[in-house]
């Protein structure tokens, strides 16, 4: 009888008690995680609203519109305005931080490793984001510079030149951003080099073969320009 009682306590009740204790500990951890996430959601929402309203008062949207970022935000449908997007980014970062803090609280090697990797990766992600924003601004600025200069020079393909300028700057930007986040670095660089080299070679061959006379006339007019009498004017603008 005593043996049976001991067996019952050691083989059945003991493990069950341990399991219950472990479940209780896990449950408290889970509640802790959920509380942290809930807190993150609340703090994130409050931070988003504050940032959105403060940026609106500071006319951040107007600044972004001038820089051309507003149009990108609007067209991409990311958010209803640039200041709202800034608020949403802040909210996302706060919630992500809360989630990672919660996971870290579990204390298992797996979660600890995951948190560590995310935190190491985050600066690269932010840098890539910054590269993209700067790239968009530079591409718009250079595109507009080329467009105005080409129109003022009377080049018929002004819009094409401006578009190509924007395209190449954006390609460079995307390559730099992807390189920063470490996505198939070598593949991207090789693909870009082949693509870029191919386009340039194709253009050179097409121009050399298909427009030999045009190239001749263009170079001739460049180095020994001769104006027709009807093109002459003697305007003094000032």
């Amino acid at each position, binding site marked *: 009888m005593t043996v049976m009682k001991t067996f019952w306590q050691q083989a059945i009740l003991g493990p069950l008690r341990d399991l219950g204790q472990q479940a209780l500990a896990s449950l408290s951890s889970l509640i802790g995680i959920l509380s942290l996430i809930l807190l993150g959601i609340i703090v994130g929402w409050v931070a988003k609203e504050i940032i959105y309203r403060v940026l609106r008062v500071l006319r951040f949207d107007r600044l972004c519109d*001038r820089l*051309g970022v507003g149009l990108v935000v609007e067209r991409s449908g990311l958010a209803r305005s640039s200041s709202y997007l800034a608020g949403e980014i802040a909210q996302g970062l706060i919630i992500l931080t809360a989630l990672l803090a919660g996971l870290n609280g579990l204390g298992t090697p797996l979660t600890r490793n995951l948190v560590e990797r995310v935190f190491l990766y985050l600066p690269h992600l932010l840098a890539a984001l910054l590269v993209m924003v700067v790239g968009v601004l530079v591409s718009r*600025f250079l595109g*507009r*510079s080329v*467009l*105005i*200069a*080409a*129109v*003022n020079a*009377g080049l*018929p393909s*002004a*819009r094409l030149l401006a578009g190509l300028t924007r395209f190449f700057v954006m390609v460079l930007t995307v390559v730099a951003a992807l390189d920063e986040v470490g996505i198939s670095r070598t593949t991207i660089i090789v693909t870009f080099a082949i693509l870029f080299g191919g386009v340039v070679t194709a253009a050179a061959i097409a121009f050399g073969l298909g427009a030999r006379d045009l190239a001749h006339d263009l170079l001739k007019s460049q180095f020994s320009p001769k104006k027709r009498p*009807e*093109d*002459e*004017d*003697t*305007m*003094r*603008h*000032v």
Partner: protein
Amino acid sequence: MAEDILKEQVAEKLSSLGAVEIIVGIPSYNNARTIGQVVKAAQAGLLNSFPDRKALVVNSDGGSQDGTQEVVEKASVDTQALMVVRHPLHPIHRLTTPYHGLPGKGSALQTLFRITEAARARALAVVDADLGSITPEWFNLLLQPILTWEFDYVAPYYTRHKYDGTITNSIVYPLTRALYGRRLRQPIGGEFGISGRLASHFLARDVWNTDVARYGIDIWMATTAMAENFKVCHANLGGKIHDPMEPGLDLSAVLVQIVGTVFRLMETYDLVWRNVLGSLPVAMLGLPFEVTPEPVTINVQRALASFQQGVRDLLPVYEKMFAAEQLRELKLCAALSVDGFVLPDELWVGLIYNSALAYHRRVFDREHLLKSLMPLYLGWVASFARQSENETSAQVDGRIEKLCLVCEQLKPYLLNQWPLQAGEKG
């Protein structure tokens, strides 16, 4: 350091000359071919018109390499009343040619104003060194209003061909007249006379190391004199023949320099021009000349083609500057053939006002904005040339007058749109 050397040089000259009442300044840079005639005209003019007043001719040179200073010294009949100085010419002056064709003109004028102040002279006349049509009478016309009638700023008035000075006729004159209420016909003429007190006033301003001094000094002086209520008048100088503008000078860069300065000054003086409606005539001194100006030709077809391409290709840029109605009208104008092409005055003035507003609000990069005006300006040129093809000078003047009146009539639109300063709200 350079200032100290200049002070010593001026003090030495003044101690040998005694009190100087009049100064004639000739800024130069590689003008050996023409400056001799200008120096001779200046000394003859001073001798004829002001024989009993002590005068000094100052050549402020930017470091000419063609023997300009030697020519000046040889041409001078009275070396005692001649002073040759050098104004600093920074590398940027040599790299970027301003619209008036003289690198570092702002620096040269600053030097001349300093000499005027140091000499306590009553009047200063400044003439370009590349003039081919200068006569001794010019100095009487530029200086007499200051010495006799206490004027502070004497602007030149030249007899010009109807197609000459199209930026002045289309933008600078109508806009400055509507803004400041003074009908100063050629505010970027090149030659001018100023009183000693205005020279000191200019010297005290903090513009000498800015783009205003580098590229927009003429319009800055004229605007400052008008906006700050100095007495201004015109001197009728007759025809002007000078070396042609730098051949490589880009028209869009000229627009950036001139229109950029006018727009920038609108910000400086917005409290002044917002209280001005209508305009008053500016006194004209000197008898009208019978001069046949140098002929000027305009390639209307090419100017119109540039306008049409601008409206077609720069639409995304113009959408940020102009109202929907203006864009619609621009498209309609661009669809016209050369025979029927007209850019209405109301549309043109609206475009100028909206450009000034967009510049003020920094809708996008300011240099882009100013450069994008070039096709529109050429559109105005094409429209003006086509309409005035068979018109006399008097009829063309009437046409410019009509444009100015439209500019004055539409000024309330600009006033309504121009943002109030923080202290004025409520």
